[in-house]
């Protein structure tokens, strides 16, 4: 079964060649490759052996898995996802207990150096990482072990990419992203809370086609999907430029679909493909359904102030700082005033009157 090509798997599942080619064309354009590459993508995918994939879940909520396995089902993207040899996935694996662990170890041994490691969830590091364990082993240990034999690592979701919610202040478990621990393997970050399903299949398609990682930005995200901000691709952008803003979630502006900046939309600093690929088979995305972007595909989004405060506002109250400024100024001002007054009094005391007689001397 491991020798089956992707095309074999898809044919078995009743996917026509035509549908497959359509997917390849769509994937090619999604990844911002020239259209002429579509046939190359198709060729490569047809020949691709099912790559062994090990999926580790650490400090996470399983939302990423839910997003990837359910939302698009049963589209070709999800079938491509199915077509990979998912040798170990805690949520999806049938086996339990030591049998499940044995499956992981087997897969790691058999495909050592070749398997793709997918990780969702952040890694606890505080107190030796004891705050998150599977089968008595800390996530930290498991990650290091699994990463050693991986060809590449895909960090699925914001937690494994940037630390996410567990990393949020005060970060009681010392949660860090995968990239903080593994330094010697190529890592692709696919952040989002959860990430868009088509983005993860896009990344897998790229990897299967070219055997390399797609072009990444400075945060390790594939540029094809995270190259532009939500704001720049938002269909409500013209309203921002015209100065038309919704002031509340149920006012005239909200009903007219005006810009949600005032209601806290973080679209301007958020890089993701939501505004273009959208969710639920291209149905909609948060802003389209009337809620501002939370900025979930960016680092520290949870600590970036209220979701309902405009991006340009302070993330913590400035009143204390203002109070300190005024109090310090009053204290220093009194000091300066007293000093000035004593200088003045001193000058007055030592003032010598000059008379015409003095001048004639």
């Amino acid at each position: 079964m491991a020798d089956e090509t992707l095309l074999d798997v898809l044919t078995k599942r009743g996917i026509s060649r035509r549908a497959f080619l359509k997917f390849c064309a769509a994937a090619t354009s999604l990844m911002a490759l020239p259209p002429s590459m579509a046939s190359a993508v198709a060729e490569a995918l047809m020949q691709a052996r099912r790559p062994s994939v090990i999926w580790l879940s650490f400090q996470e909520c399983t939302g990423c898995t839910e997003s990837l396995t359910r939302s698009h089902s049963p589209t070709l993207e999800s079938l491509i996802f199915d077509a990979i040899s998912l040798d170990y996935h805690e949520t999806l694996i049938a086996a339990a207990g030591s049998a499940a662990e044995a499956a992981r170890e087997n897969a790691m041994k058999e495909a050592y150096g070749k398997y793709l490691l997918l990780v969702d969830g952040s890694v606890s590091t505080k107190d030796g990482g004891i705050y998150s364990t599977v089968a008595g082993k800390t996530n930290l240990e498991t990650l290091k072990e699994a990463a050693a034999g991986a060809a590449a690592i895909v960090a699925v979701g914001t937690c494994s990419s940037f630390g996410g919610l567990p990393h949020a202040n005060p970060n009681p478990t010392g949660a860090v992203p995968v990239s903080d621990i593994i330094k010697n393997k190529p890592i692709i970050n696919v952040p989002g809370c959860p990430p868009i399903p088509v983005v993860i299949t896009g990344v897998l398609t790229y990897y299967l086609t070219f055997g390399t990682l797609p072009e990444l930005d400075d945060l390790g995200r594939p540029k094809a999907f995270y190259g532009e901000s939500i704001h720049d691709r938002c269909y409500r952008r013209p309203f921002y430029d015209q100065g038309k803003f919704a002031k509340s979630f149920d006012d005239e502006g909200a009903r007219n679909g005006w810009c949600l900046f005032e209601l806290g939309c973080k679209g301007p600093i958020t890089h993701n493909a939501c505004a273009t690929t959208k969710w639920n088979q291209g149905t909609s995305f948060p802003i389209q359904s009337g809620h501002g972007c939370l900025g979930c595909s960016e680092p520290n989004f949870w600590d970036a102030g209220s979701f309902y405060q405009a991006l340009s506002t302070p993330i913590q109250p400035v009143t204390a700082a203002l109070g300190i400024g005024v109090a310090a100024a009053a204290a220093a001002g009194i000091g300066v005033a007293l000093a000035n007054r004593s200088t003045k009094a001193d000058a007055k005391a030592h003032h010598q009157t000059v008379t015409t007689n003095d001048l004639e001397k």
Partner: protein
Amino acid sequence: MDAMQLLLWARGPALGIAFAIFLFGMLLRLFEIYSLGRNKDLAPPRSHSPGSGWRTVVMRSFSAKSMLKASMLTYVTGYTFHIGFFVVLLFLLPHIELIRSITGLHWPALPTPFIDLIAVASIIALIVALISRVMNPVKRFLSGFGDYLAWAVTLLPLLTGYLAYHHLLLDYTRMLAMHILSVELLLVVIPFTKLTHMATLFIARWYNGDWFARKGVAS
């Protein structure tokens, strides 16, 4: 520090620090000025002229015709920059939101492309003003480090705001952080350079106006 961390720092602790230093410095300046007091008036005027101080505060904003002719460039760049700066500061929506979040006051915003145009005009005015300052021997002679520093920290917020809006040079998040930090730098520098004139000009104009309106000596 990644761009997001920088932005969070700029929007959080740095803003508080900048505001505290700005308030501290400005209040100290005002304290210094007012606590000096005024000498006893040994020759009280014949009649008081109420409102003359306030009138001068307003009227000094308009140039005398002869002065305008004599140094057209200084006036035009000065007006363009000052008006532009305040239009950008007070009528771009994100700025209004910032003011609203701190003071609760708000007013309608102007369309972004218009603000963009005004920002460009202000930047050009500042650059022309600098060229004139360097080229003109009198202005150059009168300028010191503080003047060039004041010029630079005033230009930075406009420039970084423009670059951020147009996605130039750095990615938006980082440039936005730079923009906020540049404003914080401006706030910190204001009380300790000639930029203090944003507050003291009103005091000086009032004093001049009041003094110049004195007529005769009471007998």
